[in-house]
């Protein structure tokens, strides 16, 4: 059924910018404070108060715009978007309409459909166009539940009122829910890399609305679009899109007409519900904000921002593959956040073994971080320390097995690899004489197993190796042990 239709998706992302103070006043943007404590006449919308643009918002928006290849307008205009809602204290939101901050951008990123178990089928590069990025203020928050008399009263918290947002509007370039998913993931990374947004959908500092329509495959004209709201996580976004695509196809197949409307995703029921139809849609009566002059961004400022741009996630992913011969998957994981990528590259340098650094981070360190709920930026084992450990494996001071135990201990105690290894009784024993001596004792004390081995039960080699490791406290060099014990088990047999 899906094959008969082409899916058209456009996305609107609201990214909360990480400024210290709000967009039009000096109140703090801190999250989680006492309701209405971070407010002033401006963000409370009190009569007579006037907005003054926070220049840090312009700087951050410029970073975001350049990261998405948008052209920044030298002059953009703030407009008022008028509507009534209790959490909108002025009765209008200061946004941008006719002349936005920036326009005409794109990203070129890997995207893939996923199989049943959620694994990528085949990564392909695809370019998605971005229509515009503009600047606006956030509204407050209405609290309906969990408050005193919340059955009959609603509460309003205006701490979020006036928090700066960048609204990023894509072109309708996505042809599947996974393309949309990969795009939003990339956007999150790009905004985090440029340090302008925390990019946490669950905490609401990255919010997503989608426009979805379907049309018969090969058609020129897009179908009627439906707006989806309340897509509060990456997972919800993808599932809501899937649901909506199925719903529209089923409707069209049964001869119904899709109506232009806004639908809300309900995670509990895994369904979208109609919120309002086109007829009930707001007329926002946009007009230029008379309290603010046009926003002028100089060529010098844009150049300054361009100079301070970090390497972007996609470029970095490609460079990592190239420079360190990493697999595309490993490179993707290692560039998920800028701190992760920084950590990896520092470890790669410190260890002089980039391949091994990638494995140790992705297999061992990430597990420990996950178990303790720690971000890599706060890892108790730093890149230098992990690098030093990898060097010790490579120069055979310790075995891989020892290193795994050592890393767990380093993670727990914050100690260096040297300290931990010496507490474990010292480094790896590779001296052949010492290992031979140990082997003699092991063989001597296990005559029955020796008998069985010699009568052909060669799987018992593992038993002897295990005994050797045990006797050495795990420190015997496994390669030497393997060679020596095998030689002795067989060699002594010939002697007899």
């Amino acid at each position, binding site marked *: 059924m899906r094959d008969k239709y082409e899916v058209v998706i456009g996305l609107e992302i609201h990214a909360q910018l990480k400024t210290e103070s709000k967009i039009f006043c000096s109140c703090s943007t801190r999250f989680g404070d006492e309701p209405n404590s971070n407010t002033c*006449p401006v963000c*409370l*919308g*009190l*009569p*007579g*108060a*006037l*907005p*003054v*643009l926070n220049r840090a918002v312009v700087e951050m928006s410029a970073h975001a715009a350049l990261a998405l290849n948008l052209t920044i307008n030298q002059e953009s205009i703030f407009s*008022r978007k*008028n509507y*009534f809602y*209790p959490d909108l*204290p*002025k*009765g*209008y939101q200061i946004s941008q309409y006719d002349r936005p901050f920036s326009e005409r951008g794109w990203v070129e990123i890997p995207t893939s459909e996923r199989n049943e178990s959620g694994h990528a089928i085949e990564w392909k590069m695809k370019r998605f166009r971005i229509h515009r990025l503009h600047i606006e203020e956030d509204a407050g928050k209405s609290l309906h539940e969990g408050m005193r008399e919340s059955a009959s009263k609603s509460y*309003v918290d205006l701490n979020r009122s006036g928090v700066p947002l960048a609204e990023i509007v894509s072109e309708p370039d996505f042809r599947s829910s996974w393309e949309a998913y990969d795009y939003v993931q990339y956007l999150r990374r790009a905004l985090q890399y440029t340090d302008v947004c925390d990019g946490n959908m669950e905490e609401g500092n990255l919010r997503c609305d989608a426009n979805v329509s379907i049309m018969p495959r090969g058609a020129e004209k897009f179908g009627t679009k439906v707006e989806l709201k309340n897509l509060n996580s990456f997972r919800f976004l993808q599932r809501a899109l899937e649901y909506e695509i199925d719903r529209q196809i089923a409707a069209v197949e049964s001869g119904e007409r899709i109506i232009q409307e806004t639908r809300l995703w309900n995670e509990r029921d895994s369904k979208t519900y109609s919120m309002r139809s086109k007829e009930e849609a707001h*007329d926002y*009566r*946009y*007009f230029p904000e*008379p*309290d*603010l*002059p046009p926003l002028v961004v100089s060529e010098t400022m844009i150049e300054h921002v361009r100079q301070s741009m970090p390497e972007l996630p996609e470029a970095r992913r490609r460079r990592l593959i190239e420079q360190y011969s990493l697999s595309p998957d490993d490179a993707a994981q290692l560039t998920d956040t800028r701190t992760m990528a920084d950590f990896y590259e520092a470890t790669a340098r410190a260890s002089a073994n980039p391949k091994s650094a990638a494995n140790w981070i992705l297999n061992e360190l990430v597990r420990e971080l996950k178990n303790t709920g720690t971000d890599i930026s706060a890892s108790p084992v730093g890149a230098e320390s992990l690098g030093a450990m990898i060097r010790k494996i490579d120069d055979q001071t310790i075995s891989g097995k020892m290193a795994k135990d050592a890393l767990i201990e380093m993670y727990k105690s914050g100690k260096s690899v040297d300290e931990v290894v010496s507490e474990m009784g010292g480094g790896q024993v590779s001296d052949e004489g010492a290992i031979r001596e140990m082997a003699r004792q092991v063989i001597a004390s296990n005559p029955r197993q020796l008998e069985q081995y010699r009568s052909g039960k060669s799987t018992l080699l593992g038993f002897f190796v295990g005994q050797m490791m045990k006797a050495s406290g795990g420190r015997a060099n496994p390669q030497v042990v393997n060679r020596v014990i095998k030689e002795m088990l067989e060699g002594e047999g010939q002697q007899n």
Partner: protein
Amino acid sequence: MELRDFTINSLRQRIKAREIKATDVCHASLERAEKLTDLNAFITLTPDRALKQAAEIDLAADAGRPLPPLAGAVIAIKDNMVIRGVRTTAGSKILFNYKPPYTATVVERLEAAGAVIIGKTNCDEFAMGSSNENSAYGPVKNPWDRERVPGGSSGGSAVAVSTGIALAALGSDTGGSIRQPASLTGVVGFKPTYGRVSRYGLIAFGSSLDQIGPFANSVEDAALVLSIIAGRDPIDSTSSDAPVDDYLGAAKGDVRGLRVGVPRQYYGTGLDEEVRASVESAIKKLEDLGATVVDISLPNTEYAVPVYYLIATAEASSNLARFDGVRYGFRAEEADTLKSMYSRTRDQGFGAEVKRRIMLGTYALSAGYYDAYYGKAQRVRSLIERDFRNAFEMCDVIATPTSPTPAFRLGEKTDDPLEMYLSDIYTITANLAGVPGVSLPCGFTSNGLPIGLQLIGRRFDETTLVRAASNIEQAIDLDTKPPVEGL
């Protein structure tokens, strides 16, 4: 003690010399306000606050400390500018109990300069009106004839100054709301260049047009107050950093060689003959003092009223959206849904003229009508701006009547909004073009009503206005004290 016998500076000298106490001046002012309550010039008096400020001035004088420029000057504030903790209604029921938590920049500047703030003056609701009959707190009466209006919307401020309750007052002017009541009550009213004075703390009507300015009984006092409130305010993004000139000094200059433009469009039908004669004779006085008079044209003047009523109402429809009963002010009781709370609150909280303008402005911004109304109005507005730029190539100041008629009767125009809107026909162009304008008394009608002359200047050229106005004031030398007991 009679406040009208003093200028701000002469009073300050007397206080400095400890011949007069600022507290006595303040008491006298409060007593007069009590005596003239029938004029309804004030919505709220602030005696405690005023007396405290006055006492501080006396303390400074007694200690021989230098006194600031407005020391002891009793000043009234239009009730659409906020003062922390002082009820601020903007003439509306919807703010009947509103006590703002902060103070307007202009009031802070006045107080820092030693002014004694006596109270909040009555005005048309949200400054929408030309007669002061749109106040939820009752109309203000004209002291020259209590059957007549004082003009609006800053009628209370004009009357407070005219009757000597205050030495000066602040008003706001969106389409003539300072100049027209100044004209109708025989005082000086100054609308500065848009951006000259901070709007922070002024409850907005038409944000791109609103400008705060002073009322006073002399050009000198108006210039002095202007010099205190003018200048860049970092918390008003539309305030200008153009340097503040010496307005007081400008009053001393002469007008020789000054080119006075007379736009024919301002002397056509609808202009009262007595007003015309009085204004023309005032212009003649300027000529006698050495100015030259040139005929000029402001060809797009005829569009000013419709353009104004589209732009001002569009902005107002948005500015007044915040009065929704959610956070402060009046909230209708009997609502059972959010929507009905909004509509009942706004229906009961706003007066008829405010609702009319909100509807007009909402319509002008609606999808499908924006280009034809608001968009077009903005384009014509730029033509009007261009008219002034062209005119100022040929002259330095433009002289016109302030209002087509003297004060009209209470109730005379309340049933005909269009007729009422024409009261501002000569004043709204200055707001649309953002240029400064001043109205000063230039004569009386045969039945004793004041007539005002309007002078319009180049952007940020308030000094030329002060100079021209001051010369006319001295040449005409009118007695502008209204027939009020005790004056």
